[in-house]
């Protein structure tokens, strides 16, 4: 017979889940939990400076490893602060288990100090959530939370634990089995045959790899299908890395900031195969005009995604790794020379970059230089904005999970804590964070966490002293009325980083950036480099929000496009 309090039970159950890191901040309503955590021999607590940082740090661990990330917050403001990171995990299907303290059950509903309805507020942004009513319920809730977070389409699960439940004594005979990912079957054979038949008959097919390929560990199978059928492949932002950027059939990212050639080819394809992708509007543009000529095959583990936005001619519901594995032998090898030639001509006509754009102090140039210097097994995190899109456009991602970026929710402030999480998961690897001055300011307090944990996080601030993508939209679509998107003061980010105890450099105009990158990437520990970028550097091509992907603005040789 085991006897302990609810808080000790939670910690023991987390240890049994093999959790070894928890990000969080203590407060009144989760102090029993912290008291129990203090006794743990195997779990290391990462003290963040804001609960949103803790949520993103847990996401960083989850995104880099594929396992569940765990974060703690107290009731009230602790819980509301962590919500953004939970919503972000929900939209990108990231397995996070968040445990929040709550006021004692007897005070729930009385507007007690630091009371908010965490359960009610997290219903729409979690895969599932719990309000724990009895300490013994933890015996099934905690393992089930991990099983839910990791199985099927992954996602965040929140467990709200009133303080009296944390201190209540509970006795039990037997430990529950830890929760684990439950394997899902592939799509059924009849539909697979129909899909194979449709692929074999297609003259101009495109395969689109989404984040689901990465969650399912299906990139080898995806490559198998692509190569057997010579099917050109594009990736969503969340799918980047699932096919190496230099693969001969890779067309890079699709959508709002895709290469012109990719969007043009998609307009002309006769079969669009989505694998673990969900037809997000940033990827498809105006959905009724997306791939107008194409049949659609949609593979997804979540049946609710199939035909949600675009009717699928064939829906393949099931584990995408197994589905692809079963599909490959049914595909007739076919060189598809005409289609590939057509795409090659487009790619030559409309390249993503130009020699002028890839000099070291231009956005593409500095990203490519960092790519050249970063070890093969390094990670890249981004924040949200121009720097994120430039990185997505040109960084040669070559493996799944190499990129950590906020896709669905597009949360500025994601990057720094997520990079810290990845670095904690892989302390021997280097994590480069591309961020902007706007994004960095949204979770800048986590510089303290990076220094305190002494991690190999290299922060590259692409500083245009503005909210760059907002400014770009005002410039393009609001009659150049630039309002509330230019910052009025110059911030010395290097001085701020130094104030946190971090090594930092300001790249002066004309300085040798290559040398600076080499120096920074060659030394251990956290470091920040602030690099001025002209406000006028825009992200092109760009599909106007709400427009068809055929209506791109700018980019190399745009004038050649009728």
């Amino acid at each position, binding site marked *: 017979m085991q006897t302990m309090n609810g808080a000790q039970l939670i910690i023991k159950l987390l240890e049994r889940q093999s959790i070894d890191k928890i990000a969080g901040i203590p407060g009144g309503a989760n102090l029993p939990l912290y008291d129990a955590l203090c006794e743990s021999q195997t779990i290391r607590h990462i003290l963040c400076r804001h609960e949103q940082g803790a949520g993103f740090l847990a996401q960083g661990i989850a995104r880099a490893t594929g396992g569940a990330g765990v974060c703690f917050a107290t009731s009230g403001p602790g819980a509301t602060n962590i919500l953004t990171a939970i919503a972000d995990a929900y939209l990108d299907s990231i397995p996070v288990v968040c445990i929040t303290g709550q006021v004692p059950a007897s005070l729930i509903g009385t507007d007690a100090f630091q009371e908010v309805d965490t*359960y*009610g507020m997290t219903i*729409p942004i979690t895969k599932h*959530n719990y309000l724990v009513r009895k300490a013994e319920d933890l015996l099934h809730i905690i393992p089930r939370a991990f099983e839910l977070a990791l199985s099927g389409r992954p996602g965040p699960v929140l467990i709200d634990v009133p303080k009296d439940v944390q201190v209540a004594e509970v006795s039990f005979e037997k430990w529950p089995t830890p929760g684990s990912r439950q394997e899902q079957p592939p799509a059924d054979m009849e539909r697979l045959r129909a899909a194979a038949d449709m692929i074999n008959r297609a003259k101009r097919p495109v395969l689109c790899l989404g984040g689901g390929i990465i969650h399912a560990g299906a990139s080898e199978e995806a490559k198998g299908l692509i190569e057997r059928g010579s099917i050109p492949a594009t990736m969503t932002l969340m799918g980047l890395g699932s096919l190496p950027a230099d693969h001969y059939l890779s067309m890079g990212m699709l959508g709002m900031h895709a290469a012109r050639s990719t969007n043009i080819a998609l307009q002309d394809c006769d079969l669009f195969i989505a694998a673990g992708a969900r037809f997000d509007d940033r990827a498809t543009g105006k959905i009724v005009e997306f791939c107008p000529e194409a049949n659609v095959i949609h593979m997804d583990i979540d*049946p*609710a995604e199939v*035909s949600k936005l675009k009717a699928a001619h064939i829906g393949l519901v099931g584990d995408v790794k197994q589905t692809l594995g079963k599909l490959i032998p049914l595909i007739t090898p076919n060189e598809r020379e005409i289609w590939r030639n057509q795409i090659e001509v487009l790619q030559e006509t409309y390249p993503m970059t130009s020699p002028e754009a890839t000099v070291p102090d231009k956005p593409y140039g500095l990203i490519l230089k960092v790519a050249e210097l970063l070890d093969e097994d390094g990670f890249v995190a981004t924040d949200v904005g121009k720097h994120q899109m430039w990185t997505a456009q040109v960084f040669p991602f070559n493996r799944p999970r190499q990129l950590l970026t906020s896709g669905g929710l597009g949360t500025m402030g994601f990057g720094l804590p997520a990079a810290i999480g990845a670095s904690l998961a892989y302390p021997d690897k280097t994590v480069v964070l591309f961020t902007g001055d706007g994004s960095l300011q949204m979770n800048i307090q986590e510089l303290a966490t990076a220094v305190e944990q002494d991690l190999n996080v290299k922060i590259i601030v692409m500083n245009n002293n503005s909210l760059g993508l907002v400014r770009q939209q005002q410039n393009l679509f609001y009659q150049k009325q630039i309002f509330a998107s230019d910052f009025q003061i110059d911030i010395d980010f290097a001085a701020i980083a130094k104030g946190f105890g971090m090594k930092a450099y300001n790249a002066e105009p004309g300085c040798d950036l290559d040398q600076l990158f080499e120096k920074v990437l060659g030394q251990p520990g956290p470091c920040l480099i602030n690099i001025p970028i002209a406000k006028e550097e825009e992200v092109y091509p760009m599909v106007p929000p709400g427009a068809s992907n055929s209506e791109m603005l700018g980019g190399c040789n745009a004038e050649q496009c009728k």
Partner: protein
Amino acid sequence: MRNSANNTIKAQGKDMTVLELTVNNHPGVMSHICNLFSRRAYNVEGIVCIPIGKGETSRMWLQVNEEVKLEQIIKQVKKQEDVLEVERHDSGHEVFLRLASVV
């Protein structure tokens, strides 16, 4: 939730689709289901919920005024952790007919 005059007859349940759900019975389950409908902008005209058996589970009847999105709604409802079973009644359900006689 929406109600319009020309739907009054329909709202009494004559031919509006009714989804019959078996759900885990706990204090948050109604919130979960109602939140799903409001968040995804699905129209519900009527809801009836009552505990069944020993009270471990409940039965819910949702009168759904959505033709195009119906398949999507059913898929989303089935995804809910607390939903154990979903049954679809395309020609309505007597629960609403009987209720209509007392309101």
